[in-house]
């Protein structure tokens, strides 16, 4: 298991390098010059050149990349051009909010999604199945930002249970977690349901019935366990999405977060911040898939075998 983990970790190094090149290049391929945003309207080309030299923007691209990567690996992502603060500080300020939202939303969608999916699969084609799946279909088709607004209207404005926006107290997390999590619930529930119904048709399940094992035990101890394997995969892919893709929800609830930081800095063409937050997100996605692989290997002996 440990050797499996180390192998998977080593495999991430080339992926990380490739991703870092792409991240570095993307901002250089986008039109627009951050220096134009910094200098005064009437400044001379010399002043511009001095500024470019100060931020290292006059060097050839490959040198810029090498310098950037070297610094990034030692924890220095440079200074924000617009905000004039170290990028690391900006990330440190925003990441905890993203992590809290992401972790809680993921936990919420995992528990509720698996529960709902299992219920629908066990009582398939019944009233329970149809009701659950209808609610879930509705939930998955409503866009997050609109669902967020609805939740604000109901629970914050009408009922006054939770704050409308911000991130000052823990209860400000409830509505954003619900908003982000409900989309995940739909995804997880559908995958769980289909995977359980597929597993239930396998020969070994018939054999379990032939052994006289009670149906609830077959569903929970055997069928659900198999169904969780694909669920783990989609959950691990969702980690990165929740951290970076929850931007609209962060906007609706006026919450800080990596997504908001990325969008703001993109609008301002603040290259170092864009690169820094993209790099963080890429790392989150990679760690997410690593976590997914490790969990899957822990659950399925055949996966462990394949790696050896």
């Amino acid at each position, binding site marked *: 298991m440990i050797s499996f983990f180390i192998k998977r970790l080593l495999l991430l190094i080339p992926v990380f390098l490739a991703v870092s090149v792409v991240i570095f290049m993307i901002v250089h391929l986008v039109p627009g010059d951050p220096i134009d945003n910094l200098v005064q309207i009437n400044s001379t080309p010399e002043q511009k050149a001095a500024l470019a030299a100060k931020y290292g923007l006059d060097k050839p691209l490959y040198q810029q990349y090498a310098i950037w990567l070297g610094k990034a690996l030692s924890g220095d992502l440079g200074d924000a051009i617009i905000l004039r603060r170290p990028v690391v500080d900006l990330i440190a300020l925003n990441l905890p909010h993203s992590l809290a939202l992401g972790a809680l939303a993921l936990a919420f969608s995992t528990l509720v999604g698996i529960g709902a999916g299992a219920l629908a699969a066990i009582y398939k084609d019944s009233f329970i199945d149809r009701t659950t799946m209808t609610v879930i279909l509705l939930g998955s088709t409503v866009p997050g930002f609109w669902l967020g607004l609805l939740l604000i209207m109901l629970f914050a404005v009408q009922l006054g249970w939770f704050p409308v926006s911000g991130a000052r107290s823990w209860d400000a997390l409830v509505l954003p977690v619900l908003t982000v999590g409900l989309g995940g619930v739909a995804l997880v529930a559908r995958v769980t349901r289909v995977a359980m119904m597929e597993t239930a048709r396998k020969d070994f399940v018939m054999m379990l019935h032939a*052994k*006289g*094992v*009670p149906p609830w035990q077959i569903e929970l101890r055997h069928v659900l366990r198999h169904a969780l394997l694909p669920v783990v995969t989609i959950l691990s892919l969702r980690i990165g999405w929740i951290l970076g893709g929850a931007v609209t929800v962060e906007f609706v609830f006026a919450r800080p977060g990596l997504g908001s930081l990325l969008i703001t800095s993109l609008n301002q063409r603040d290259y170092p911040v864009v690169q820094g937050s993209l790099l963080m997100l890429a790392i989150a996605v990679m760690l997410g898939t690593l976590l997914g692989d490790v969990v899957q290997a822990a659950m399925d002996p*055949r996966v462990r075998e394949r790696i050896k």
Partner: protein
Amino acid sequence: MALLSVKNISVTIGKLNLLDGVAFDIGAGEILGLVGESGSGKSLTAMCVMGLLPRIGGTITEGSIIFDGREMIGLPDAELRRLRGKRIALISQNPMTSLDPIIRIGAQIDQVSTLHLGLSAEAAKARSLDLIAQLRIPEPEAIHGAYPHQLSGGMKQRIVIAMALAADPDLIVADEPTTALDVTIQAQIIQIIVELVRDRQLALMLITHDMGVVAQACDRVVVLYAGRVAETNSVEAIFAEPRHPYTRELIRCIPRLGQAPGSLKGIPGAVPSVVDYPTGCRFNSRCGAAEDLCRNTVPALERKTSGLAACHFSEA
């Protein structure tokens, strides 16, 4: 009295009538062979006896199944579960897919004895290790901790046999237990099953399409054709004087040593499909001796001097 008595059961799945008045008995300690081509209803009969028919969407429309003096049809599922695995066990067709791939072998055998005999985890494990050893598998302890994908097909089938024996059943239903295995292992597995069943004086319902296996292992034979019983008799009588033309054809199809090359022929035609069974005797489309009577009237399963046969022209 017979341990299991299947009385004229008819089975439908959807609109298809798959079994039509199938009847046979199995005595305690008896090995009964159920033979016939694919599509004759052998596996379906096994499902009925296991009480698993509803799981594949089938219904028993007529007849009764008496096990140890008790009617099985209509028993609530909780009651059936107390029979399945405990008193009637299944050895399935394909060992490759019959074990849960992410659960250790040992746990899957232990499950049966903890469930039905109420054994503690340690007692169940000791029992499973003993069973594994009896199945002549080397290093029981290692196998107990292994996962199914680490074992060969033959080994897996032995594990399935161990699961079947784990709660000391009275009847074992073996549904073509060797069709998915290599030829070299088939004989071994049959031999192991027969030996263990004889040692423990268990009844065995052995489903096969191999008349060689029948001759080697069974006490009595039921020949099924297209969802009906064609003939039943003791194994000696069936081979000595088969009364149904289909049985004769099956026996003729066994390859023999010294047979002239090219002289081994199959039964002409194919088992008719369930959607267009011929009227009268269902074998009439492939029978050399069929007459108008066979095409119009269903032959009754009648008692002969020995055994039962369903043919208008069979000898007494």
